């Protein structure tokens, strides 16, 4: 099931949220290469965002080679292996940053944190 959502109360810009959401869906296979993206208008309506936001993301993804835009027929997903891995890394890095931030807040030291991470992985 495709899950695209953006939150207005987040401090992350909408277009970034949407981009991430689309990427997540592509990476997790929910959006398949060659598949067709919803039109700008319909996606905007579903998400209740400004069509400009959707357009921005689509064009941005087109520039980065993730989407292929053809006049009249909308945007299709075009994903290369290399880019896929690159994005995966980016996403995880983002998560790690967040984790570190929380850890600092809670007062973990670097060593304590590494210990916890190791233990969690072991426990599955």
């Amino acid at each position, binding site marked *: 099931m495709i899950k695209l959502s*953006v*939150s*207005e*109360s*987040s*401090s*992350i*810009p*909408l*277009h970034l949220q949407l981009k991430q959401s689309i990427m997540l869906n592509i990476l997790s296979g929910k959006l398949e290469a060659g598949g067709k993206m919803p039109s*700008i*208008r319909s996606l*905007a*309506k579903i*998400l*209740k*965002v*400004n*069509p*400009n*936001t959707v357009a921005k993301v689509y064009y941005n993804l087109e520039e980065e080679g993730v989407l292929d835009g053809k006049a009249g027929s909308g945007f299709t997903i075009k994903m290369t292996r290399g880019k896929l891995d690159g994005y995966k890394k980016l996403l995880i890095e983002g998560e790690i940053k967040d984790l570190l931030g929380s850890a600092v*807040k809670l007062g973990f030291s670097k060593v304590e944190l590494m210990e916890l991470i190791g233990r969690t992985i072991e426990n599955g």
Partner: protein
Amino acid sequence: MDKNLIEINGLNIYYGKKRAIKDVTLNFKKGETVLIAGRNGAGKSTFLRALGQLILPDNGSVNYFDLSKKKIGIITDKMSMFEDLTLEGGIRFHSEIFGIDEFDHTILDHLGMDMKRKISALSSGERAIYHLSLLISQKPELLLIDEVFYLVDPYIRDIFIETLIGLLDGSNTTIIMVNHTFAETGKIPERVIIMDEGEIIIDEERETLLSKVKKISSDMPVTIDLPVFFTRNTPFGSEYFIFPFEKEMVKDKNLYVEDIGLNDIIKAFLGGRYVNKRD
């Protein structure tokens, strides 16, 4: 695409002796979506009415480019209409005078409104939706909406937002909405204007605000010189709201900087003005 639709220059509007709009100068482009927020009595509705030519400038000017009156749709908190007409009659009148070929009944059908009822018999929410439908059918190039969204139930609100989105995408309409928060208008506005006491205190893109307004929490008083516009004291310490934020400000300093969402940003700005007023 980047042409100005409205240019406002040195606008001043008085209510009697009180100056409700003070020397406002700004522009609106075609296709922009703007949220105007502010405290009660800040001048938002006055400003909106001025944009809709319901109030004429006392000083300064409001200039429109390539915009005929038929393409301006405005709904104010009064939701003024000829209330003795039936819904049908109101549609007919509005269509005729604004030159609308075909009225789109979709939204009203959704609600199952009886066209033979009189407008005066509608509830506020129904009236808001009815009025908005009329405006939409004008295919306006400029749409001005004063705080009426809160009257409409969430389901209808969604339908309405979708219609607005359709307008934005299809007709490149400039939409200017007045509201306290983003709550009703959602994620549509790209530009945020905050007014206070007749002046524009914030006029930024949504993204800019997100990146330039930060919150710093600390249980110790902050000693360095930061552009704090609002401080909130909690039992756990103080929250400092910063604008405009630059990374250099907190470099090498042990300060916890948080991103905040737009609703909180607006609340902070409003809070700041209240506090200033009090002092």
